[in-house]
């Protein structure tokens, strides 16, 4: 249990939550450093909201511990925890005006000098002068900011955000993402943000934990996870990946040799999660290039041959589908640099990449197989 991080770290140690026979959170251990912006990313039902609710005290863990700054809080009632939540539905009190909504936590703790603090908080979320209004008189974005102010005013050690931007339209959501990041930097409170939106998690968080079926599949900085995913699930949940099923046949110097569909590929050993057996060879679509079939590839590149079967122009890039000889479809995103034209459908091409951009993931035989979460040292799990 030794941990020499700052005093305010939030730690989950072997936390499990079961609802009947369903395991929502499965032996989860992680440390969220004080002052960080941490995102729990996953599809709905993956256990991320349950994890958040256990930290808030709205659910009791079936087993395991939740520690805040070394103190065990998992058995404390929610109103005894120095933790506040911004709820997905905002849950503003309809019978109170905005001022009283924001002041709610301070009043319950019998804090003096409420008015000044509320005014300051309303101006932090840019809602000066809205104090006398009722929640139903505000727009969704304004209500979201009231919910944020109502939680932040209590200076919690940890602020929990449960998909707070889910109800907002795209433009407002982008705006609020920047806003939230600004406020987090300003107040320096630990933010734990639950979301299913991978772009939101990547733009805002210092550290992202990708959850699947009650476990963390991978944890790290957004770029780390994106550039070198740990599992096939992560590779496809965070962005898109082309995964070729192959088998490791050996090594050659610093490279791992992989055979897939009769072709041989190489990947630097440090880009491989496993070094033997059945693997996925993965490449991100934007790291694939198209060349006319038969043309020489750039030095060091390797590729597969195929035919363009689909192309969609999305402005910043054109997204192609290339069907290989063995029937797999590869996605290729070609940036719209203005150099070179569109590749017509039906063109025989070679999709090629630099081996340093590829990665190797374990390939499980059965669907239920799982791998241990990969935890970088910076945010190491308790053990």
């Amino acid at each position, binding site marked *: 249990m030794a941990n020499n991080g700052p005093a305010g770290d939030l730690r989950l140690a072997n936390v499990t939550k079961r609802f009947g026979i369903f395991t929502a959170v499965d032996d989860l251990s992680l440390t969220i450093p004080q002052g960080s912006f941490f995102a729990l990313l996953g599809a709905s039902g993956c256990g991320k909201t349950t994890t958040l609710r256990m930290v*808030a*005290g*709205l659910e009791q863990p079936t087993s395991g511990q939740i520690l805040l700054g070394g103190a065990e809080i998992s058995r404390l*009632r*929610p*109103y005894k925890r120095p*933790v*506040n*939540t911004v*709820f997905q*539905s905002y*849950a*503003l*009190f*309809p*019978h109170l005006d905005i001022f009283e909504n924001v002041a*709610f*936590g301070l009043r*319950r*703790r019998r804090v003096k000098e409420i008015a000044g603090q509320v005014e300051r908080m309303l101006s932090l979320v840019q809602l000066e002068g809205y104090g006398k209004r009722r929640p139903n008189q505000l727009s969704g974005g304004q209500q979201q900011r009231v919910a944020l102010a*109502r*939680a932040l005013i*209590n200076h919690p050690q940890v602020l929990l955000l449960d998909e707070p931007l889910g109800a907002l339209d795209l433009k407002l959501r982008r705006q609020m993402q920047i806003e939230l990041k600004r406020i987090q930097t300003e107040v320096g409170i630990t933010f734990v943000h639950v979301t299913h939106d991978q772009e939101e998690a990547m733009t805002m968080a210092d550290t992202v934990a990708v959850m699947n079926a009650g476990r963390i599949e991978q944890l790290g900085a957004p770029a780390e996870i994106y550039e070198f995913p740990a599992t096939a699930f992560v590779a496809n949940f965070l962005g898109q990946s082309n995964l070729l099923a192959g088998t490791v046949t050996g090594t050659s110097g610093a490279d791992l040799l992989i055979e897939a569909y009769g072709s041989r590929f190489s990947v630097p050993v440090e880009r491989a999660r496993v070094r033997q057996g059945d693997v996925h060879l993965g490449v991100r679509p934007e790291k694939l290039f198209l060349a006319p079939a038969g043309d020489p590839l750039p030095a060091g590149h390797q590729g597969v041959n195929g035919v363009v079967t689909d192309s969609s122009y999305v402005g910043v890039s054109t997204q192609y589908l290339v069907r290989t000889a063995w029937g797999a479809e590869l996605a290729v995103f070609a940036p719209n640099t203005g150099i070179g034209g569109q590749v017509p459908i039906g063109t025989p091409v070679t999709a090629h990449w630099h081996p340093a951009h590829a990665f190797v993931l374990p390939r499980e035989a059965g669907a239920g197989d799982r791998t241990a979460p990969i935890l970088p040292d910076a945010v190491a799990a308790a053990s």
Partner: protein
Amino acid sequence: MSVLSHVGAPVGGPKDTVREPVAGQRRRRLLPYLLLLPGALWLALFFAVPAVQLAATSLYDPAGSLDLGYAMTWAFGNYPDALAAYWPQFARSFAYAGIATVLAVLLGYPLAYAIAQKAGRWKNLMLVCVVAPMFTSFLLRTLAWKTILSDNGWLVGLLRDLHLLAPDGRLLATPAAVVLGLTYNFLPFMVLPLYANLERLDYRLLEAASDLYASPVRVFRRVTLPLSMPGLVAGTLLFFIPASGDYINAELLGTPNEYMIGNVIDSAFLVRLDYPQAAALSFLFMAVILAIVFVYVRRAGTDEVV
């Protein structure tokens, strides 16, 4: 021409296209009044006309009688006379009904809350149980209480054995019996509006409050109770008004010492045949109820209810 903008026809359009929409518009304007007509007729016939009749009766010469006939003498003195003679029954009506209302809130609020928020799949069954007694007659239910509270009943025996009641103590024919009867008989009127309100209570608001440092007691005081005020006001009014006007409970479970204003009006109309006094008492009662309701709703601050 302002009509045109409502129906979407271009202003200054050809005359032919204008005529039809205007006729349709007129019909649409009349529709609400047509829908109001049956209810308005009903109210006029069975409320407004009898109310005027009753008001007139209350001002008849008190010296008249059913045999001799009544003369309209604008006898406003009927009112102070009636009040002077029967103010104890007035006071008793509101006291009994008031105590019964408090008891009904104490019983009904937790019950309604439990059914609405905690009953799960038992919700409908429990609601049926609340309403089920209403399937038997009011009179029959009150008579059943008379049996339960009777001097040789098991309840009195038990209370005497436990020394909660003196050896010669009684339950029947006491104020407590009347209040109990009122509480029992009108409880569903308290529970149902409260249930309807608490059923819509968003538990996420309660979670939010407890996340914001409110203990369970404070969550109730600051969130649940204020949000359920419309249900509570509706329930107390639906309970208090008929309970204060009731006379069956006092008649069957009490003695003349427990008689309420309903008993007096009943006897004035049907036994003593003193119509002017009965009418004056009815009007006084109505006026007091209206005043109480007005003040109460104002104080409760729920403009959504009335």
